[in-house]
């Protein structure tokens, strides 16, 4: 039934729901501003950390300062969609616990879509701009040619990279359907976003495998960045990353939906 609705319908619906959310958020303007500044604080501190490290050391596993900043900027960008569009995952625990979740099950639209569309997290916007700025700075310093091909590649790899963290958080949030309150799983999974900023090359073979195939954070920044940073030695995984991203996202969606459909309410 859900699938019969077109993309246009959902885009239209998303706009309506989003407007409602933004209206209610606008009444807490100070919160929005302070939270955005807080978000940018965390991003700036990551930047400063690299700056301090490179005051003492020339490179990390053969990656220089600007290459690391490129990776960092890219990871911030790729982590923006999960922050902005999928933040309602964090409220899943309380929705399930109080029984509120049942309201999402009763609408004739896609449950996952409806649930996620209800919250747009504005904090992510600050991160988006900071990430773009960092990426732009590193891009210039590295002298990567700014061609149409590179721009298209950047957009494709940005979208596909963002799918990995979204999928990871969906899976972590979905555990809420089976465990009673599993915010700790989400906190656990969310920490991995901080590890996406390092080249996966630094790890031993076992952890390289884990971070590529089991908890695939290497796809959030490392593999897509190779397109631009090491164009002479692009591994096959870089080319595969958009497909892997879609597959991983699809799996997470299915698991999330399976959990949601098994939800039986609290009985009240």
């Amino acid at each position, binding site marked *: 039934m859900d699938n019969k609705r077109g993309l246009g319908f959902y885009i239209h619906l998303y706009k309506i729901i989003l407007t409602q959310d933004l209206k209610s958020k606008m009444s807490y303007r*100070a*919160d929005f501003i302070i939270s*955005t500044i807080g978000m940018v604080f965390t991003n700036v501190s990551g930047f400063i950390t690299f700056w301090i490290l490179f005051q*003492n050391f*020339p490179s990390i596993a053969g990656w220089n300062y600007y290459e690391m900043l490129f990776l960092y900027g890219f990871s911030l960008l790729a982590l923006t969609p999960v922050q902005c569009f999928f933040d309602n995952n964090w409220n899943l625990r309380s929705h399930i616990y109080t029984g509120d979740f049942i309201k999402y099950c009763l609408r004739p639209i896609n449950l996952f879509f409806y649930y996620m569309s209800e919250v747009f997290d504005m904090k992510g916007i600050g991160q988006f701009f900071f990430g773009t700025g960092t990426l732009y700075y590193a891009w210039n310093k590295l002298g990567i040619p700014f061609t149409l091909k590179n721009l298209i590649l950047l957009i494709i790899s940005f979208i596909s990279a963002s799918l990995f963290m979204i999928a990871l958080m969906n899976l972590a949030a979905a555990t809420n359907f089976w465990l*009673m309150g599993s915010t*700790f799983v989400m906190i656990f999974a969310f*920490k991995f976003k901080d590890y996406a900023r390092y080249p996966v090359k630094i*790890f031993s073979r076992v952890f390289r495998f884990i971070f590529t195939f089991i908890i695939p954070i290497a796809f959030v920044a490392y593999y897509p960045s190779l397109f631009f940073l090491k164009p002479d030695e692009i591994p096959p995984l870089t080319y595969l990353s958009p497909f892997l991203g879609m597959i991983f996202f699809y799996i997470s969606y299915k698991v999330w939906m399976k959990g949601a459909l098994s939800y039986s309410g609290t009985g009240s």
Partner: protein
Amino acid sequence: MTNKKSFTLNKYFSLTKGSIMESLSFRFSMLITVIGNLIYLIVIYYLWKAIYASSSSEVVNGMTFHDTMIYLVLALALFNFMECFIVWSIGRNFQTGQIALELIKPMDYQVFCFFANSGQYLISFFTTFLPTLIIVYLITKGGFALSINLIYFILSVILAIVINFCVDFFVGVICFYTESVWGVNIMKEVVVALLSGASIPLAFFPDRLRTIVNFLPFQAIYNSPLKILIDKSLETKDYITIIGFQIFWVAIMILISRIFWNVSKRIITVNGG
């Protein structure tokens, strides 16, 4: 008939299942937290290994790879030990009005907050910090000295807790003026983690930045106790200097946070009951 009976039992079994899940969930959360910390340690291990591999000398700013790892592991243990969510509890109590009930208690609110959290410090000292310390000591086969410095270290940690608490309390009171608890809290976390030397040892900071950081209270939270524990070259007079600085900051932070609290608590009356 039998069908019906098993059906009625089923509804009770679902309660069993629920209670099993609830109690397992607690154990499971402990396990996941430990695994999360382990993964963090693995990541920083490989990260710093790669960083040191790029350097031409083994000792950078007086720290070897070994020293850096001991420092960072213990910093993480200290961090877990001192984490106490006071900003959240003050911010939330203010927003819900719960704080009014705590104010009518015949106790000083700041001291009340401290002791309400003190049990947590004690528990996490024995469950997280002490085991980590022992494991690190055994793995590194005496990577840090165990002598008179332990007494200074314990004293230093207690002072660090008080400074950390005052920072948290101060930031919690800031929430009276803002609508945001999340934003204020994350700013505090970032500033403390960076400027205290919890994420990168202060020894790596460029000179000018380190001079500034030395004049701030944050380094007294992580850097001071860790330095006392790890640095084998310190003498009695160095220990006393470090502790003296911490005492100075304890006094300043208590003073500042109390003044700020006394000015700010007037706002609370507006909320009423």
